[in-house]
């Protein structure tokens, strides 16, 4: 009886262990099934590189190039803002800050991670959007830049906490060795600790970017959602995620539009999967 109980529990735990993989697999299969149905009626080339997104016209024009570029522009913008600040913050927390400030900062960053994206979007809409409009004398503040700034806030907690862990796990004797050779604190950080933690920091950046590209609500609220190929970061853009969120309610189940939204889902899945795998490769590079 006891052995039987043991057996059951073991199998249950095993099932839990595999559950997430099974779910990912099922989700991907479902996405594929619904998304690939689009390519019966539309060519993959026209879908990926078409310049017009008019999903409800007759005939519909389903080109997602402006959406892909919109997503990439917002993501690159957010990365440029969040990486230096995030990594700098991680260095300060891991290496320089006294214990009290360290605790305070860590709590603050966790708090930042806890703000729902719709709240960030709302705050951005009311404060950041008019600010961007006035500073750059733009016709509208609903731009890729506004989205990038808001998303940088969202990527920062991930980048800081993972990068801080990476810096923290650099063996103490590296640091002591550098000091013994007469290096200053900054020289130690720059020449010894950062290179030693580089794989972890790269992984942190990748995870942060992964979070940004999948973000929906905030970008939908503050990037203007114009499906046009962006020529500057001060222009409105429409992202892949916002397109799915804004249009899924309307799309009639089984229509071309519906399949196209799932195909966008596949594109997004592939992009974030690639980012996560890259992050993982960096993390385990040393092993």
């Amino acid at each position: 009886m006891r052995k039987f109980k043991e057996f059951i529990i073991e199998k249950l735990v095993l099932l839990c262990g595999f559950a997430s993989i099974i779910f990912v697999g099922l989700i991907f299969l479902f996405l594929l099934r619904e998304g690939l149905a689009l390519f019966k009626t539309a060519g993959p080339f026209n879908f990926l590189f078409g310049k017009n997104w008019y999903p409800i016209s007759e005939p519909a024009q389903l080109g997602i190039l402006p959406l892909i570029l919109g997503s990439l522009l917002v993501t690159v913008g957010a990365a440029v803002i969040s990486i230096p600040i995030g990594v700098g913050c991680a260095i300060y927390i891991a290496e320089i800050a006294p214990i009290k400030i360290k605790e305070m900062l860590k709590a603050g960053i966790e708090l930042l991670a806890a703000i729902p994206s719709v709240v960030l979007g709302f705050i951005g809409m009311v404060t950041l959007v008019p600010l961007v409009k006035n500073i750059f004398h733009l016709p509208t503040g609903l731009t890729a830049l506004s989205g990038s700034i808001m998303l940088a806030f969202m990527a920062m907690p991930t980048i800081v906490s993972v990068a801080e862990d990476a810096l923290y796990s650099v063996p103490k004797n590296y640091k002591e060795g550098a000091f013994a050779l007469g290096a200053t604190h900054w020289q130690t950080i720059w020449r010894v600790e950062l290179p030693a933690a580089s794989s972890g920091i790269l992984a942190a950046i990748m995870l942060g970017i992964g979070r940004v590209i999948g973000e929906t609500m905030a970008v939908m609220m503050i990037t203007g959602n114009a499906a046009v190929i962006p020529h500057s970061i001060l222009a409105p853009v429409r992202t892949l995620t916002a397109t799915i969120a804004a249009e899924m309610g309307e799309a009639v189940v089984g229509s071309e539009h519906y399949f196209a939204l799932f195909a966008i889902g596949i594109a997004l899945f592939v992009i974030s999967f690639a980012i996560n795998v890259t992050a993982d490769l960096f993390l385990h590079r040393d092993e």
Partner: protein
Amino acid sequence: MLKKGLLVAITLLCAATAFAAKDKDSIQVKGSDTMVNLSQSWAEKYTEENPGNFVAVTGGGSGTGISALISGTCDIANASRTIKEKEIALAKQRGTDPYEIKVGLDGLAVVVNPHNPVSKLTTQQLADIFTGRVTNWKELGGEDRKIVVLSREVNSGTHVYFKEHVLRKSDPNGKEEFSSGALLLSSSQAIADEVAGNSDAIGYYGMGYTSAKQKSIAVAKDERSEYVIPAIENVLNGKYPISRPLFVYTNGSPTGSVKKFVDFILSKEGQDIVTATDFVPVKK
């Protein structure tokens, strides 16, 4: 063991009856954002007069409402456009039979910021602005500034109506599209807010949303016609060129509590609410 089984059975039975009771008296209404406030007012008045009958109203857009009616997740779909051929075909396929009831009229207001000197436009000029052929206010007698075009998302009946009747001038073979540079906002309120804060913006929505923070443009069919502002009397006498019917759709001709609610909408009381929420009644 027996006791436990009995308990489960009783709980299930209770749950089932509770569910059935809820199903019978509650009406789910979903659809057009334009009609949400109107529909909510109907629901409140109706529930007040018929205690125990519950009406739940949600928005999301005309397309959302009709999809929900087709998939059976609502009893009444509000729509600010007529149902599409495609949707009817799909409904037939799913075994639903959309039944159309006209419940009011709406004038679409084209709005700009009060600081904008432009105050009247022809429908041709509107088409030029929203398709992106005209991009500067100075071409329309305004200042030398870029026009910021605001539109609703594609799930909006207002978006579809504006495209078909202003951009394409009701030509079913029209190919005109909204300029790809148009900002697509997710609600009428978002457009109202952006217009209120941006002196270069132009947008459109049901005239019920207009407040002192926006200026309604007077619209003429062509240069020789009279420029008319969106107001109830101008929609009623047909002078205002951009007005549209508002519908509710039910599955088959309405029966039971849904019929009672629809009858209430079409009663004098229901139509008074239409007027009170800045729409135009179908019956007087």
